[in-house]
């Protein structure tokens, strides 16, 4: 909220500059987000006394003046104003003063610093100013003539201030946290300032009438909703003339960003910003009855509010009604029917206490947050209504020329008990880690309106019995009071200990994090860049990608209820849309070779008993993507485009580096809407992920210039698999030499190689240390529909293997290949 420093000065005396005040408030928990200064700086402008005048010898329109500025001797000033005369008190800008004056060229205001000058041969030490030159008005007909009793030499700003004219004001924009309902007013902020500068808060003394009297007889009030309306206070002013507010009031409201309307409405706003108690003024002649009933709105009840909008009131809304119907929404906004207008003469000023939760719900349901609802939903002072209403009534009588109807309406179905908390000094020390003397604790709490109860005087060890002021509904527990003490004492005064005991808890090696780091390093080493993509994507995209093909889990996409935009109204079920976005973005900027990876959560709706939130599935996914050249031309190599096997090589390398061998591969060769072809990776029947090429159709919809090869892996499954493996143990290195054998077989041209390799590994048993493909051949030397595959096999054991043993094992492999895969040994 905006706080005017001039206004604040009404309640607390301090000598802090606006910036220093901002610092003080910030360090009290009232964070000042900006300080804006309005008006002119009049430093250097003083009251001068024109002792004598004489015509300028060289210029008809100029006058030479001897002016007393309170110094040892008068100075000569050249003045061009027709109205200057001896004996006048005038504002003088002394040499060195900076004024904002219109530029001769552009007419725009620009800072001009006055120096001693000669004007047409005569010396001039300063400038006698007109109103506009001081930023005080538009008058440029002549110099300002001040009151005859103005003290010579007095700073002009002070002269103005003594006459109620402000020259500049600084407005602090304070971010009020939800635990400070007391601070949404000038008095509230002043209270904190007073506590810190150790002075008293001065609240204007107002005569508050006793409940009852003529006013109460004039307007009966009935509370049918006591659970929402804890208190309803009113006063009446009659014979009021509604009109423009005086300048001082308009200036104050404008300074904090409120638009002045008329004196009555301005007064209610003024008192709200002064005290934090929202008020509402009714034109009593337009209130049917006149009487008020506070009740729940009837179903589908309609009301035209002050902003001239007809609203259907939601269930649970409480209204202030007159004899004819609703005339205002409790705590949110008044109604247009009883609005203050130029013809209003009798004003009813209402100040109420409304239940915070109800007001919050109503304001939300209506989609309107007003200055009033903002304060009510935080909780206003339960005792603050009579003062605020009386304050507004007196101002109305004063500024609107009316007469206060004697008496006060005070309907109060709920009277809260004073709240007390016990503050144990030992607990305070335990929380803060430093000791604050009990007397200081008492002083700090008393300064912001707490009372230290009698019980604690005799027995301080039992804790202080603290009575919470009625304007602090947020203070409910001991810890709340401890926080108040701590913030007033100053967080920065809490000393940091020389040594801190670290709680006993053995640090656990984080295997999963280490694995992730290791994967990141491998990928960076292979030229991959890490991405962070948005997990919020358009719903149709989420739906299209929520497929087990990509994520290995059967699930449906998740949409959000209150999306920011249609581009972000669902959660990604796969990292692929984000990868394709990054690919498209960079491909369309001619980025060349692209290799990307990302770790991130993917989400779906699924029956997943392992998931933290029932009905959903969430896991960490790892995606890799490649496009563009896999190799650039230069030296002894030619440019080559990326293909499936480049990415497959990377994935294999990654898995091998993590210690995972013997992956089962399942190929899918039929193109679908997302992928042209794909290879699923399984381990012990668990799906680890997929490697695929995007389909051309997906390429079109994703605005890809080239196909993207991607691999998406279920990182959580992979990580769990790895972390559950037994710790590494050393195996002795065999002293016996390994034996290499090559083996070539002929199979059908379309037979995949993978299953043959798996069969070789199985049949080779523990003697077979490794097996890999080293040649593929199709052509003249074998049958047309066949191909030849050559494998390099390495056998070894902890003893020297005889040819006989190895031959036997090779035969077993050949038999197995023949039996299960129809492979023939190539002769």
């Amino acid at each position: 909220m905006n706080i005017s420093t001039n206004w604040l000065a009404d309640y607390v005396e301090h000598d802090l500059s606006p910036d220093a005040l901002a610092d003080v408030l910030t360090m009290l928990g009232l964070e000042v987000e900006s300080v804006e200064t309005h008006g002119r700086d009049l430093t250097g402008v003083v009251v001068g006394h024109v002792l004598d005048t004489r015509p300028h010898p060289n210029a008809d329109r100029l006058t030479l003046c001897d002016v007393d500025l309170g110094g040892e001797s008068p100075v000569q000033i050249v003045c061009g104003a027709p109205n200057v005369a001896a004996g006048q008190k005038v504002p003088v800008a002394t040499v060195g003063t900076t004024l904002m004056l219109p530029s001769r060229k552009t007419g725009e205001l620009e800072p001009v610093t006055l120096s001693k000058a000669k004007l047409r041969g005569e010396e001039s030490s300063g400038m006698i100013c007109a109103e506009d030159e001081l930023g005080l008005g538009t008058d440029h007909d002549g110099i300002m003539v001040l009151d005859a009793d103005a003290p010579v030499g007095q700073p002009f700003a002070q002269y103005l201030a003594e006459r109620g004219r402000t020259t500049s004001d600084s407005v602090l924009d304070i971010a009020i946290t939800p635990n400070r309902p007391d601070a949404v007013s000038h008095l509230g902020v002043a209270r904190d300032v007073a506590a810190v500068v150790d002075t008293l808060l001065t609240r204007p003394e107002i005569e508050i009438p006793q409940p009852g009297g003529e006013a109460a007889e004039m307007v009966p009030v009935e509370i049918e909703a006591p659970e929402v309306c804890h208190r309803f206070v009113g006063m009446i002013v009659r014979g009021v003339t509604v009109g423009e507010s005086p300048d001082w009031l308009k200036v104050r409201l404008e300074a904090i960003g409120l638009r002045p309307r008329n004196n009555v409405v301005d007064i209610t706003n003024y008192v709200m910003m002064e005290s934090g108690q929202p008020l509402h003024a009714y034109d009593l002649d337009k209130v049917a009855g006149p009487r008020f009933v506070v009740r729940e709105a009837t179903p589908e009840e309609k009301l035209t509010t002050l902003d001239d909008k007809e609203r259907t009131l939601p269930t649970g809304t409480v209204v202030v009604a007159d004899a004819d119907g609703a005339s205002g929404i409790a705590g949110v906004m008044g109604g247009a029917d009883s609005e203050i207008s130029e013809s209003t003469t009798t004003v009813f000023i209402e100040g109420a206490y409304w239940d915070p939760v109800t007001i919050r719900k109503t304001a939300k349901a209506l989609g309107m947050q007003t200055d009033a609802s903002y304060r009510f939903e935080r909780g206003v002072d339960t005792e603050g209504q009579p003062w605020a209403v009386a304050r507004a009534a007196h101002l109305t009588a004063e500024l609107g020329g009316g007469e206060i109807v004697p008496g006060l309406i005070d309907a109060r179905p709920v009277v809260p008990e004073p709240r007390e908390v016990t503050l144990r000094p030992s607990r305070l020390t335990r929380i803060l880690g430093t000791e604050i003397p009990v007397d200081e604790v008492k002083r700090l709490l008393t300064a912001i309106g707490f009372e230290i109860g009698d019980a604690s005087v005799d027995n301080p060890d039992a804790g202080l019995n603290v009575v919470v002021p009625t304007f602090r509904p947020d203070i409910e527990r001991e810890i709340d009071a401890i926080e108040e003490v701590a913030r007033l004492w100053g967080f920065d005064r809490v000393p940091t200990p020389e040594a801190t005991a670290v709680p006993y808890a053995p640090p656990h090696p984080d295997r999963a994090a280490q694995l992730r780091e290791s994967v990141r390093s491998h990928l960076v080493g292979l030229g991959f860049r890490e991405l962070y993509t948005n997990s919020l994507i358009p719903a149709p995209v989420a739906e299209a990608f929520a497929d087990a093909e990509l994520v290995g889990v059967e699930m449906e996409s998740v949409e959000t209820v209150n999306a920011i935009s249609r581009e972000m109204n669902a959660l990604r079920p796969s990292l692929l849309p984000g990868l394709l976005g990054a690919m498209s973005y960079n491909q369309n900027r001619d980025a060349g070779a692209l290799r990307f990876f990302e770790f991130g959560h993917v989400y779906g709706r699924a029956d997943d008993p392992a998931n933290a939130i029932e009905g959903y599935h969430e896991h960490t996914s790892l995606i890799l993507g490649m496009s563009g050249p896999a190799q650039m031309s230069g030296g002894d190599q030619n440019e080559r485009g990326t293909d499936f096997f480049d990415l497959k090589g990377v994935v294999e390398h990654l898995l091998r580096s993590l210690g995972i061998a013997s992956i089962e591969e399942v190929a899918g060769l039929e193109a679908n809407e997302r992928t042209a072809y794909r290879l699923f990776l399984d381990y012990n029947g668990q799906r680890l992920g997929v490697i695929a090429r995007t389909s051309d159709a997906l390429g079109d919809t994703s605005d890809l210039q080239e196909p993207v090869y991607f691999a998406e892996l279920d990182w959580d499954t992979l990580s769990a698999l790895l972390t559950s493996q037994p710790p590494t143990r050393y195996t002795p290195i065999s002293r016996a030499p390994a034996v290499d054998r090559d083996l070539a077989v002929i199979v059908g041209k379309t037979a995949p190689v993978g299953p043959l390799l798996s069969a070789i590994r199985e049949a080779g048993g523990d003697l077979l240390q490794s097996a890999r493909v080293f040649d593929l051949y199709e052509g003249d030397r074998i049958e047309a529909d066949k191909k030849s595959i050559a494998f390099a096999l390495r056998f070894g054991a902890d003893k020297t293997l005889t040819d006989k043993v190895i031959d036997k094992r090779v035969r077993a492999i050949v038999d197995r290949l023949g039996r299960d895969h129809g492979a023939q040994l190539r002769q």
Partner: protein
Amino acid sequence: MDTMTLRDEIDALSQEIEAADLPSADEIEAFRIRTLGRKSGAITALFGRITEVEPSERGKTGQALNALKQQAEARIELAQAALTSSDGAERTDLDLTLPGRVPAPVEPGSLHPLTQTLEEIKGIFRHFGFDVAEGPEIEDDWHNFTALNFPPEHPARDMQDTLFVEPPPPDGRGIVMRTHTSPAQIRIMEQQAPPIRVIVPGRVYRNEAISYKSYCLFHQIEGLVVDEHATFADLKEMLHVFAQALFGDDVKMRFRPSFFPFTEPSAEVDIWWADETIEGGGRWMEILGCGMVDPNVLEAVDIDPERYTGYAWGMGVERMAMLKYGVDDIRLFYENDTRFLKQF
């Protein structure tokens, strides 16, 4: 033969060229001979028939034929380009089970600046012996709000613009995209007895319009200590040492009172950011929020607040990265422009 027929033939051939399936070198060559071959090419033949057309129309027809020729040439070029990558097209006769090859890097790889920042922060707290834990991003009301002392219908809930997956009761269960990493604190304390010393990194969401200074999601890292003697002074010490590690030994910092529902007293921490170009030679920059764990939070997870106290803090990784690298637009982190990524 009249002109229309010749033009019709051109159109028909154009469609045929467009539709041609050219998966192999043999078929590309056959296509070339069929269309552009000097003896039997269809386009060559059409060129020969240009005399059939009225002289006044010949110019136009010639242009159409030239366009057709260019189309065929382009088609061939495209098909050949697709072939140079061994499976550039949507081919279905690949043996995907063949072993892969590991390509050499074309450019250096890079870790995302947010990862680098996060790892640096994590590293500092690991030195203090903190464990690292994570939690789900789809959260329930209990963990994200209620257990963290955000009462239902309290204005504190407005401090964070919440993105809902299910509406609040009575229309749903109030399932949200977590607005902070603090729900993981609750999950940890539900499972583990004090003493607790843990940090939680993770992605969090806010239903906010995207601009240079705010994004719909960001990353937080948060720390939690619960023990019999944890005090606000300890918290200050811990964060001071942290700030020294991250910003240098002579870092100047201040703790100012603030409000978070789950801590009390609560503070925001600023560091002094020297900048000679602004008045005063610098300014205070907020880096994190912190406080003593609110007794209500400990009670929500059945930890006795009379026996144990705790402190917690949380910071935005993007904010730290922006400070560290001088990045002035948060959206850059999610745009993934390689010209940005390669700088880190």
